[in-house]
Structures are given as C-alpha cells and as structure tokens.
C-alpha cells in the first residue's frame, strides 16, 4: 500500500496551525482577533489619509464550545475608506492576500494572515466566520455579509449578502467575530493593556471602547496629523540569507541578473555591480536571465554581494510617532506625576532602518505597586506586544541598563522596580519577529544597543524628577533628625556630666547652629535639583510649543543654585570619615 502524497492549501495549513499565528490559547484568541481587526482598521485609515475613529466592543455571550472557554463577541467599527464589496472574500477569507506583503513599509500588518486566521478561528469554534458591514464613499448604502474561509481551496466565501442603510457613516467597516475564547482585562495579556497601548502610540486615534460590563471609555485624539506612511523601500541586500536571496530572485524570472540586482534591492548602483565583479562575481552572469542561473551561480553572486561594502539603507522609510505626540498621548492614560519621552532619530541596525521611541512615566492613582517591577508596554510598528516578554529585544535592552544610575532600584539583570510605566516602541519596515504571531522582537546586538541608548536618554530625564523628590525627602529627613535627636543628645550629655541648665541651653543653641548649617547644604542641593528639573521642563515645553520659557534665565537659576550649594558645603565639611 502506498501513501498518497497530498498537497494542502495555505488555508489548510494555517487552519491546522493557528497556534503559530496567535491562537494558542483562549486568552490569546480574543486578544489576537481584536488586534487583527484594529490593525486592519488603522492601516486602512492611514493609507487613505483619514484620521481614525474606532469603536470596540467586547461581550460575553455564554459558554464556549471548547473546554474552559466562553463565547465572546468582538466588534470593531472604523471610519476608514471601507472595503469594496468584491474584495470582502479576499480580505477576510483568503490567506496571504495582502496589499502589504513584503513591501517594506512600516504598516502594522505585513503578510495578510491575521484577519483570515481570525475568521478561521471563528469558523472552527462557532461554525460561522466574520460578519462584515462595509461602505465606501462611492456607495449610497452599505453591504452586509458573512465571510467564511473555504479551507480546502484557500478562498473566501461570501454568504447572506444584503444591502442596508448606514447613514451615519460616509465610509467605514464594521466587523464582528463570535469566537471561543477567554477574557482577561488587566495584566500583560489583558485587553485594557492592549487598548491603552494602542492609544499611547497612536496620538491621532480617537477610540471608544466598552469591555464587558464596564462603562464606555472615550479617548479623544491629541494630534490631527495622520501619520505620513513613508514610501515603501526595497530591501537592502545585506539583510538576506542565501535561501531568501534565491527565492527573491525567482520572482524576477527572465530579468537579467544585473537588472535584478539594481531593481530588486536598494543601494545597488552601476558602480556596485562593478565592485561585485571585483569581489568575484563572474562577469558573464550579469547579462544572463535569472531563470538561467544555477544554484551554484546564485551562491557566487550572493557571496560577492555580501563581501562588497554598500551604502547603508536609507532611513527615510521609517515612521516615528515623535516626542511631541508621544508626550501628549501618554497623558491620555491617566493623571501623570512626571514623564520622560525620547524619540531617537531613525538609524540602521543590521542593515535595516529602525526608529526607537521611549516613554517613561509615573502616574497618580494607577495602582502600580512601589515594590513590583515596572509595567512594560512593548510596541512593534505601533502594535502592542503582549506575550513572551522575556525573549524580546526590548526587555533585554531594559535589563541591560543600570537603572540605579537613574535613581531607580533594580534587582540584578531584571526590570527596574517602581510604580512606573515603561513604553518602548520599535518601528521598522523590516522588523524581525521571533514568530509569525508577532509577540517578540528578535534580539540582535545592534538593535538591543539602539534601544538601550534610547532608554538611557529617557532614564537621564526621568532621574531629574526622581532626584528632586529624593532631595526633598532627604531634606525632610535631615530636618526631622535634628529636631528629634539633638535635644536627646544634649540631655544625655548634661546628665552624664551633671551640668547646669545654663550649659544645657548654651549647648542646645550651639547644636542648632551646627545642624542648621547642614540643613542649609541640603536646601541648596534641593535647589540645584529643582533648577535642573525646571530647565528640563522648560526645554520640553519649548519643544511642545507651550509656555516657552526663557532658557537663559533657567540656566542662570541653576548656576546660582550650584554656587549656593558649593558655598553651603564649603563652610564645614561634615561627614563620617575613616582616617588613617
């Protein structure tokens, strides 16, 4: 008996391997479905230049069909350009049918797997795919339909198509999934964490959401600029492995090798082709069509390319949120004690353009524990990453920073401790994930170093706030020390020496004088810390365009404070010393 070798469709493969794309547990299923729907809405709005306004509702519908799960309804509605009714089947029911695949853009979605996987999950667990309503600006009425995935053929099937009124929208999409899952609101993998993360890195987003029986939350946009999605860029040849190189090449069919190199990659010029030849690329191959090259030839070409120095890729293709927007956006998460934001200029890591942005903040009333690790929000291309943080480049970078330098306590090689939120965003047209479900960013040395630098800059800013607080506490402690211990010391000495009240009074006065000098030093130190902080604040305000403070005056304040502090210290060196 022989086994029949069968070829399965892409849809069949993903239907069997949904755990690879974010459906490995009921908890993740809910989050992934929501995420994919919101990502698609945001990407669509941005491409169309529409400021997104998204409404999300997550409800419990009863018991799920699989063990330990509940039936969950997820609804996401946007004001985007809408989907042409003819495209519904492709968008929701076909795998790898993406407008973005391999394009080298900083969009959230990349391959066209996510939303089809969500449809598949809904179909597998509740026997019904996605319920979609769509309206484009050229349609008078909206179309409503159910889209299922035909797993055998990897095509979408549109059912129960109907025309309905949707007058309140000129265009938009409303998608509804009913799936097996489990709902968690707080913590790393929680829905609230996802919502807040999405709000933070999308200052131009207006979001309304209702999770379970909680009240509706309305978050208004703080920026009216829809981000300019930079032009797509061609990949840099140095980011390729041999196998990828060959696959990439075969797409070019009968194109000549030289033409392929010049048009398939960025940073390859006629001069580079000459350089390749100098590094061992057989000249004869250049004019041959790709389809005529043998594996051995590819290897020679590949090696020559790798061994030649090329210009670094352009960073123009990277999108950034920006310090200003991030500063405004972070205040949407709650009332803030203080925060520090750093947006690094786009740079090149592993031949890929990358931009790293960091926001560190301490909130009032957020129930963050003072002795717990900071709450970490990770983002890749403006999508929150919520699972498996230990393997992520962002986590590694945070752990590699010595936060004690910035007045935060930190157990060895761990996240620092304190009631802070650390948000780190990595944006790149070629972000490398550890897995298809995009939960962790692969940690290359260069990327970790770049993130680390951003964190250290943000840490420096943050530490000014913390140090000022510490100085305040220090002053308070010192003043109370004097009040508490001074009289006790004098009284004991008076008792031991059996001295008079006159001497007691005189000693008390002397003691006050001495310790007064010390507290002057502490006051002066506090002044320096305060002045440094106000300089930072003025600088930030200036950047944000509000309350522009005169910086010169600020630096004068600091200089005076430093002088005062020096003067106070030089009066008397006061310390517990060990001398020889």
């Amino acid at each position, binding site marked *: 008996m022989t086994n029949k070798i069968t070829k399965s469709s892409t849809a069949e493969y993903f239907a069997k391997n949904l755990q690879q794309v974010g459906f490995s547990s009921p908890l993740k299923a809910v989050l992934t479905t929501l995420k994919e729907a919101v990502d698609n809405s945001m990407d669509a709005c941005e491409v169309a230049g529409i400021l997104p306004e998204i409404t999300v509702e997550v409800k419990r519908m009863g018991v799920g069909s699989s063990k330990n799960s509940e039936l969950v309804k997820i609804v996401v509605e946007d004001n985007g350009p809408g989907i042409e009714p003819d495209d519904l089947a492709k968008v929701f029911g076909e795998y790898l049918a993406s407008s973005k695949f391999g394009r080298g853009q900083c969009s959230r979605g990349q391959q066209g797997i996510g939303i089809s996987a969500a449809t598949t999950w809904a179909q597998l667990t509740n026997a019904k795919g996605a319920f979609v309503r769509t309206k484009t600006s050229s349609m008078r009425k909206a179309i409503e339909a159910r889209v299922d995935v035909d797993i055998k053929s990897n095509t979408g099937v549109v059912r129960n198509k109907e025309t309905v009124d949707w007058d309140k929208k000129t265009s938009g999409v409303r998608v509804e999934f009913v799936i097996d899952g489990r709902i968690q609101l707080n913590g790393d993998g929680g829905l609230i964490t996802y919502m807040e993360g999405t709000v933070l890195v999308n200052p131009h987003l207006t979001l309304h959401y209702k999770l379970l029986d909680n009240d509706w939350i309305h978050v208004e946009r703080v920026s009216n600029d829809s981000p300019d999605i930079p032009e797509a860029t061609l990949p840099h040849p140095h980011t390729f492995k041999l196998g990828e190189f060959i696959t990439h090449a075969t797409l070019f069919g009968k194109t000549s090798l030289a033409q392929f190199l010049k048009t398939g990659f960025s940073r390859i010029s006629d001069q580079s082709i000459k350089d390749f030849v100098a590094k061992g690329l057989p000249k004869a191959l250049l004019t041959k069509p790709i389809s005529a090259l043998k594996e051995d030839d590819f290897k020679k070409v590949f090696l020559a390319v790798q061994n030649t120095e090329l210009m670094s890729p352009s960073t123009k293709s990277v999108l950034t949120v920006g310090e200003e927007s991030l500063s405004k956006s972070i205040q949407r998460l709650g009332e803030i004690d203080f925060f520090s934001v750093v947006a690094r200029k786009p740079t090149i890591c592993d031949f890929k353009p990358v931009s790293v942005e960091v926001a560190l903040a301490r909130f009032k009333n957020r129930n963050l524990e003072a002795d717990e690790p900071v709450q970490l929000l990770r983002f890749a291309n403006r999508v929150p990453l919520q699972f498996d943080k230990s393997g992520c480049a962002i986590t590694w970078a945070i752990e590699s920073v010595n936060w004690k330098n910035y007045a935060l306590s930190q157990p060895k090689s761990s996240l620092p401790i304190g009631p802070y939120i650390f948000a780190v965003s990595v944006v790149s047209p070629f972000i490398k994930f550890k897995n298809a479900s995009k939960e962790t960013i692969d940690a290359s040395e260069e990327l970790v170093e770049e993130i680390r630098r951003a964190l250290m800059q943000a840490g420096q800013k943050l530490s000014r706030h913390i140090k000022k607080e510490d100085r305040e506490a220090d002053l308070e402690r010192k003043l109370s020390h004097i009040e*508490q211990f001074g009289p006790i010391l004098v009284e004991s000495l008076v008792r031991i020496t059996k001295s008079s009240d006159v001497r007691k009074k005189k000693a008390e006065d002397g003691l006050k004088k001495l310790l007064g000098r010390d507290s002057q030093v502490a006051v002066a130190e506090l002044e320096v810390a305060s002045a440094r902080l106000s300089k930072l604040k003025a600088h930030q305000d200036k950047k944000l365009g509000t309350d522009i403070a005169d910086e010169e005056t600020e630096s004068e304040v600091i200089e005076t404070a430093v002088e005062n502090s020096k003067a106070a210290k030089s009066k008397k060196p006061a*310390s517990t010393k060990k*001398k020889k």
Partner: protein
Amino acid sequence: MAKLTRIRELKLDIPKEAKRLAEVMLTDLERSKRPVLEAVKTSLDNSFYNAKVGYLTPGDKMVRTELNVSSVQKLARVVFMLELLLNNLEVGSVNTKRELYYMCKGVIKGNARLKPLDFEDQDESNSVIDFIGDMLRVYREELNCFANDRGGQTYSQQLVVTETMPDGDKATVDLSTLGTAPYQPKNRPQSLKLKARKKIDFCLIVESEGTANTLQAMGFTKRNNCILMGAQGVPSNAVRGWAKLIEEELSVPMYFFGDLDAYTMQNIFRTLKAGSAASLIRNADFSAPQVRFLGVLPEDVKKYDLPHYKVKESDPVEARALKKAKDALENDPFFLDKKNKGLSDILRWLIKEKIRCEQQSFFSVDPKDKIKTEKIILEKIRGGHYV
C-alpha cells in the same frame, strides 16, 4: 551588689573616662564646634600580625564620627547607651547584649521623646555597644556586658583550678573529681589559677564538643595525661580566654583537632590561635598563639583514605568561605606571615581541590576499633604530623 572580678589590670577608670568624653562633647557643642568620637577601626585592613607577638593587633586607623545631620542619630544613641552602661557599672549589675537591647526598649517606652532612638533590631544596639568598647578600648566584660559562656567543656585527670570569687573567697575544683561532668570555664579566665597534679603532656581542643565527649567517654583522659576540651564551633570568648590561660600557666603543647575546610581554618582555628579582626583590642587576652593544627590535614585524607565531599558551590555558606579563603590569602596578615605558611598552604590546597573533610571521618578508618580515632590522634602528635 558585690564588686565584679576584674578581667585584667586596666589602668583606665571607665566612668571617669566616659565623663571626660561627655564633657568634651558638651563643651564643643557650647562653642558650636562639631564634637567628634573616635574608635579603633576593627577590620582586617587595620590588623597587624607578628609571629613573635602571636595575635592580631590593631594599627592606627580610627573610625571618626563627627556630628552632622546624618550622624546625630548615631551619636545620640552612643551617649544614650553609654549612660545605661555607666549606670550598670555604678550599681554593679551585668547584662547580655540582648538584655541591654530590651532595657533600651524599656527606657524608651517610658519616655515618648526618646522614641526616635528606638532600635529596630538587636544588630543596631549591638553595633552601638561595640563602638563604645572600641572607643574606650575596653572589653565588653569591663562594661559589665557578658556573653553566654558557650563551649569549652573540659576534662582532665590532672588539672586543678582555683577560682578567686568576687568576694575574695577561693574555690578549688579538681577536675578528676567531677565524674563524667566537664568543667565549664567562665568568661573571666583571669580570676582562675591552674595547677597540674601530675605532668600534663598536651592539651587537645576538639572543634566538635560531641566528638570531645565521645573521646572522653571512651577513656581518652584516663589513658593520657592531658586536658581535653570541646570548642563548639567558633570559639566564644570563654573558650578563647580559657585556652590562653592554659597555654600561659601550664606551658603545655596545644593541639586543635577539627574539620578540614576553609571555614574551620579561618573562622575557628585562626580565631583561637590569633584572635579576630573584630576583636582587635582584646586579642591579647583572648588568643592562644601556640596552638597547632593537628588535623584533619590534607595528607590525612589520602593516608587514611578518609571520606570527603566536594564543596557545594551552590551552598552560600560554603561558597562564601571559599571566596573568603582566597581573600584571606591576599589580605589576612595572619595567613600572609611566613611563619604560617603551613596553614596558608592548607587554604591554597582547599581552594584548589574544592573538597572538605570532617573531623568525624576518622571514625571510618576502622569502625570495629572503638578507639581508633584516639589512636590516630596520638600517632599524629607523636609523629609530629601537625602544622
């Protein structure tokens, strides 16, 4: 209350000196000058060793505490504790450190203004007591602060101890008349006089008091003219002072028998022989420089095929001892001294081999022979197999 027996001939009058210090501090304050207290720095980097002297002595480094907002708490606590100790000296009452800790709590409880002085745990009050001792350069016992006399159970058929009591009366204890009970030395060895009824050949100090008791039970002191003593781990002041007294008054060879590991070598044997860095000011009266390390020696492990263990580097205590051993070879003047090369060689061997071998492993040599360990000990003494 009866006057306590003096620990040593002390020229210093403690209450007078304490009053003088308080007077200086008060005068400084009256003049708005920062009062300063100085104490001997009791740490390894201020320890010196000369084989001829035989124990660790203090150098001239001092810990200087000047009054400022940060040190005002410490100074207030020192003066507070000093007052309490002076009162004890005046009425002649004694206390342990723990009792003093609670007495402070009692005084503070009765006076709300003293609340800020309160000690959170005993470590805090201990360090204040130690500072006072180091500042006045006196023993804690001279401040009427005594420790529990742990360890030092002693057996001998030849030794006679005469104790001068606080009231001047004398008590004589003939150790041979105590039956199976040991003699337990107190923490004031200087009030004792020793006499040997018959020539004593040696004194053996065993790290494990249990093993010392076993040797005794099997007739060690009947067969040998000796003094047999249990140390019970790191020797207490009582054990250290007692060993010093035996060495000085009887001039008998002294041997220490304990585990072969870094902890025993540094914390137990070194302290017994030369004192410690923490007790720099008292090592003169609390160390027995002539005591030799009888074993377990590295060569014994092979010679007697003794069961031994790999040092567990995961065990924090053992790992620390090993790390300390490396440190000791570089910084401890005792192990750096050429005269103690034999001992530092053992430390080097331990660091290299990373094993430990316990004193009780001698019981594995011939389990049928109930006095095999005694035989080996005697064989080692006779053969000069010690360091």
